[in-house]
């Protein structure tokens, strides 16, 4: 397993480089937007990856609620953390793209922008809860919050959808079919992003497992009453956190 990680890292880096090359060089320039549109190859794959990770978080939380499985809890934590990072990329690249194309940074009535923002808020609050909660019950509370967050998503979507139909808003680039080369590049980029996300999740997962093993070892040590080794190990706990 340990040897596999660097190999996968190199492969992912190469894949990402190839995807970048396709996005910047091979994909044709958009007829209407010019080269500005190329940000789509970062914006959209990040969004899909983030949504997939949030889905994994929901599934992990449900499994944790049913089975009380530590692995499911770590999976939920890891996917939420990495998901928030990708979601942040979406929220940063979105306005950068919107400014030259729509003429505004942010369209309050736009359903995708606003619901992505709300999604981001929900999962940031999930991470805040995990950070602030006292250790023993964190996992249960976080799993409950994840279920609430997932239930909220369709309601957010519909409320904004209706809100939008009621209020005037900027005209946002209409349909039009996509050049197949663009679509291929988009999918390749998504695949590269998925590999990247998987890699980060994997290493974060191993890190979290190690953290918990260390915490457990410390707890066992202090239970066994070995005062000296307990004191010596204290700084380790702090630097580990």
């Amino acid at each position: 397993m340990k040897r596999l990680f660097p190999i996968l890292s190199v492969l992912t880096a190469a894949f990402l480089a190839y995807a970048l090359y396709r996005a910047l060089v091979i994909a044709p320039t958009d007829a209407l937007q010019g080269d500005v549109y190329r940000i789509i190859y970062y914006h959209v794959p990040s969004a899909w990856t983030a949504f997939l990770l949030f889905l994994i978080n929901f599934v992990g939380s449900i499994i944790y609620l049913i089975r009380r499985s530590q692995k499911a809890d770590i999976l939920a934590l890891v996917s939420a953390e990495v998901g928030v990072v990708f979601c942040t990329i979406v929220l940063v690249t979105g306005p950068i793209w919107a400014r030259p194309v729509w003429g505004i940074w942010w369209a309050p009535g736009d359903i995708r922008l606003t619901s992505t923002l709300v999604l981001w808020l929900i999962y940031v609050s999930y991470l805040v809860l995990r950070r602030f909660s006292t250790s023993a019950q964190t996992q249960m509370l976080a799993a409950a919050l994840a279920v609430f967050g997932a239930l909220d998503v369709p309601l957010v979507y519909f409320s904004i959808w209706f809100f939008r139909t009621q209020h005037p808003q900027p005209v946002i680039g209409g349909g039009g079919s996509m050049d197949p080369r663009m679509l291929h590049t988009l999918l390749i980029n998504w695949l590269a992003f998925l590999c990247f996300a998987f890699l980060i999740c994997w290493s974060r997962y191993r890190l979290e497992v190690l953290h918990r093993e260390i915490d457990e070892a410390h707890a066992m040590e202090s239970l066994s009453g070995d005062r000296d080794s307990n004191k010596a190990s204290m700084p380790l706990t702090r630097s580990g956190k």
Partner: protein
Amino acid sequence: MSSLRTVTLATLVKDIRLEWRSKDALNSMLFFSLLVVVIFVFSFDPLAEESRHIVGGLVWIAFLFAAVVALNQTWARELRNQVLDAYRVSPAPANALFLAKSIGNFIFVSVLEALMAPLFVIFYNLHVLGPAWQLIPIALLGTWALVVNGTFFAAMSLRTRNREIMLPLLLFPISIPAVIGMVAGTTAILTGEESAHFYIVLLLTYDVVFTTASLGLFETVLHAE
């Protein structure tokens, strides 16, 4: 079922009696939302026409923040003397406690709204152009939406450091669809420009979904160890 009703009723009556004697939650909510209203009055000086468009937002911001003040106190009084721990080991259904707390908060926040609404009318010279009676279902459903999730998250944030800060951090993101429903629905009625039916349905859906989820998960959260 009967024990659920008995325990709910007993807890509710106890909370109302405590509140009636101390008036802690109600007074702090009232003063808090009064301050918010006064600050808004200084910040905006709108014409009657403009005020119809903004008051929906202002009213609900005031109530949202005031509700958080009350919600934060909900469980705090059960922590003294380990009442909550005693409740955990007792055979009483956990949902009875949750329902009683939610209904109690609902009553407190509704009283606050009834007292504060006339102030908004006075300060902003409001004259409702749409069907005014629809404000009542919006207020009731909106308040329940805030209170049911708020009570649940207040129970959750009990187990965290900085619990007073935790509650709004958890509650506000999840409440966004409800807040959209309340604010946009109120504005729709005040201006009379569109129908508020969708918002009432939205709030109703939100209430049903989250009341069910809270009742389903409260026992887990209460007993989380």
